[in-house]
Each structure stands twice: as C-alpha cells, then as structure tokens.
C-alpha cells in the first residue's frame, strides 16, 4: 500500500486534471499505467490523479499522422490495425517484444515516455520514428520528442499532462528495432532503433537511436552521417558496423561491460540494417 496517499481523484476532463495537478503540487502524481508509482513507492505522493476517465484512449490515422492517446497500452498498440500500417508493421512487431505480455497490458505509451527509464524501449522507439508529443499546460503544446527530452522534461512534467503522441507517416521510410536481452523476457541491456528514408535508391535520411546504453537514449549521429546519401550496400553495412563498434557511446553497468555493449552495438546495427535492406529491396522489386 502507498500509505502516504490521502486521495485518489478521477477527473473527467483534462482541464480538471490539470487544475488538480497545480493545486496539489508538489505532492501529487498522475497515474497513467501507474507502474512507476508502485515501483518507486517512496516518492511520497499524497494525491493521485487517475487518468483513466480522460479521453486519452484512441488510435487514429489522420493526414499522414498516427495519433495515439497517451493512455493507450502497449498491448493495445500491438494489436491495433492502424499501428500495423506504420513502417510496414515494424513498429508493431517491435512493440510485441517489449516488457512482458502481462505488463504490456498495463504500460501506457504516455506513461512509458514520461517515466523514461533508461532501460525502457519505448523512448528509443518513438525517438527513432521522429515522434512528437503533445502535452497540456493550460493549453496544448506539441514538441518533437527529442526536443522534449532535451529540455529538463521531468521538471516540465511536474505541471504538465502528456496527452497525445504523434508519429508521422513517411513514405519510403523503413524501420527496424532490436534489443539484446539475457532471457527471452527481459529489459533490454541495449536497444537500437534504425529508421532510414530512401530516395533514388539512396539513404536520404538516417536516424539511429541507441538506448539502455545503459544510459538514456542517444542519437548515434556518426552512424547517421555515415549512412546518409549512400546506397545501402553490403559494403556500407559492414563499414557502419565497424564504425559503430568503434564509436558506440556506451558504458558498463553491473549487468554487462562496456566492451560487450560496443560489440552488441555492431551486432544490432548489422541486424537492423540487413532487415531494412531486405524490406527495401523487396519493396523495390514488387
């Protein structure tokens, strides 16, 4: 039991929720999936604001954007038809490997992005797909997730409510995600999202996100630069892998060593790039 809790509110709309958040600051906590609250019970929140009654459960395809309400669970996303449309289903496939089947029914997209445990897969995934987040601070604001994470987001979130996640549909965008684990069901000891936009047979734009490094997700800019403007050949892949191993911005933790993470960065990159190449060539031939 979280014994410090005095009250659990169930606001019916976002403005009500926001007012409660301001009123009870700083001893207040929003409850999305609620896992962080349960796991880190010593947070000492006295007032809880449940978000289940807010209209934050929807998945919509609209004008080249996949709009996802913050309270949609990973399980729901992994079973949703619209989500399958994004990057040839690769995003949905990745979601099916995250956490455990049970926890996917509890973890919300918004909750995962807001808590952003360094070993979480969701931030890496959404960053890799150029996702944006919308949050409410009396009015709505939309920011690229990468921007959001740069600007002291935990402080901002003390007085803001994440409401939507927006992922752009980009034709010619191919995506692959890999995570390294100890057993089949595990947090990632390293994850990697690779997103390549092709034009004229070449990589027009690359996005490579490295997460659980063990630190917070980072953009691996050197690899991105190395891939951009080139054809995704076998040679390019091998070069990128060597470069990744050499320059991977990774560290040790008690789980695995830095050297191993470096090694793994190369392995994951090779798998990701081969998968993308397979899909792209398959599409081109079709």
């Amino acid at each position, binding site marked *: *039991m*979280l*014994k*410090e*809790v*005095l*009250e*659990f*509110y*169930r606001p019916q709309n976002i403005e009500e929720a926001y007012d409660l958040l301001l009123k009870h600051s700083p001893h207040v906590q929003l*409850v999305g999936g*609620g*896992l962080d*609250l*349960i*796991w880190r*019970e010593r947070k000492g929140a006295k007032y*809880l604001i*449940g978000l*289940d009654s807010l209209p934050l459960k929807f998945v919509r395809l609209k004008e080249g954007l996949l709009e996802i309400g913050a309270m949609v*669970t990973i*399980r729901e996303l992994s*079973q949703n038809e619209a989500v399958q449309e994004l990057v040839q289903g690769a995003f949905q496939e990745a979601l*099916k490997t995250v*956490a*455990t*089947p*049970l*926890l*996917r*029914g*509890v973890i919300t997209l918004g909750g995962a992005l807001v808590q952003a445990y360094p070993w979480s897969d969701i931030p890496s995934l959404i960053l890799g797909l150029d996702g944006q987040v919308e949050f409410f601070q009396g009015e709505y604001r939309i920011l690229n997730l990468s921007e959001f994470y740069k600007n002291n987001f935990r402080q901002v979130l003390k007085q803001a409510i994440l409401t939507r996640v927006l992922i752009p549909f980009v034709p010619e965008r191919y995506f692959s995600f890999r995570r390294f684990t100890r057993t*089949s*069901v595990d947090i990632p000891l390293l994850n990697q999202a690779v997103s390549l936009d092709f034009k004229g047979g070449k990589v027009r734009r690359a996005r490579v996100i490295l997460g659980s490094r063990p630190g917070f997700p980072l953009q691996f800019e050197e690899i991105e630069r190395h891939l951009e403007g080139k054809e995704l050949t076998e040679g390019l892949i091998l070069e990128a892998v060597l470069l990744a191993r050499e320059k991977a911005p990774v560290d040790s933790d008690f789980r695995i060593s830095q050297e191993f993470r470096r090694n793994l960065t190369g392995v994951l990159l090779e798998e990701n790039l081969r998968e993308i190449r397979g899909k792209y060539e398959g599409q081109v031939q079709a």
Partner: protein
Amino acid sequence: MKVRFKLNHSEVNYEAHPGESLFEVLRRYGNYEVKGNNCRDGSCGACTVLLDGVPVPSCTILIGRVEGRDVETVKSLGDMDNLHPLQRAFLEKGAVQCGYCTPGILLVAKALLERNPNPSKEEIQEELSGNICRCTGYVQQIEAVERAAELLREENK
C-alpha cells in the same frame, strides 16, 4: 474511498485506502483465489486478474483505477463442480503442480483463447511468457492450453 466495480460479473462496493492495490483489496475482502506475494513488481504474474478482459498483474493496479470496470478472477472460469475446459485440460495434462501460478496462467490462457481460438504452440509460449512457473517447466502448461483450445473448438461446433 469507496470503489464500485464488477467482480466476476457481480457488482461489489469495496472500501479501500486510496494507496492500495487491487490485489490488496481483493484479498482483504477474502477473494483468496487471487494468489501472490504483493511484490508490486508485476514480474511473476501470480496475481493476474482480467481487467476489462485484459490480463494484468493485480498488484500493479491502484484500486482507484478499477471504478466502474470489470474484474475477473479464476472464479469466472468455473468452480469445483463445473470446470471450464481450460481447468479440465490443465488437470488432464499434469500442468498443475503447486498451483500457485495456476489461477493467473488460466486467466492469461482464457484471454488468449478468446482472442485466438486456434493458437500455435509459439503463440501460446509467447502469451504465457509473462507468468513465471518454477515447478512445471512450462511444457505441460503449453500442452494444456493446446488441449483446451481443442476442447473449446469441439464445444463450439
């Protein structure tokens, strides 16, 4: 606080501390069919219930979130005199040893079979992977779910 919700298709009105988990409240009210150590981790799955048909670890659900929703425990499957095909299949296949993980796994299997009446062995393995069993080594449990799917398909013919 008072929380009103459906428990195994009947309405209940429980009194709870706002910081309690669904697991704590259920057991405090004598719903002992929900097993678990209240680790509040969600990793072992022993305390699994169905919340609006979705299997979740009840130790991770704050009670305030349950208002107006549907909670099912293993009691919703059957009772001693009237077993659900899943329960019969688990007994038939030796898939129950200590039984502590069993109620949780039965509910996960129930949700799976409702969504997919003809799952492959891999799909069953995948779906059960959030529930830890230290006794059986999983093989007989997977066989039991396959058998239950068979029994249910026969029933629905």
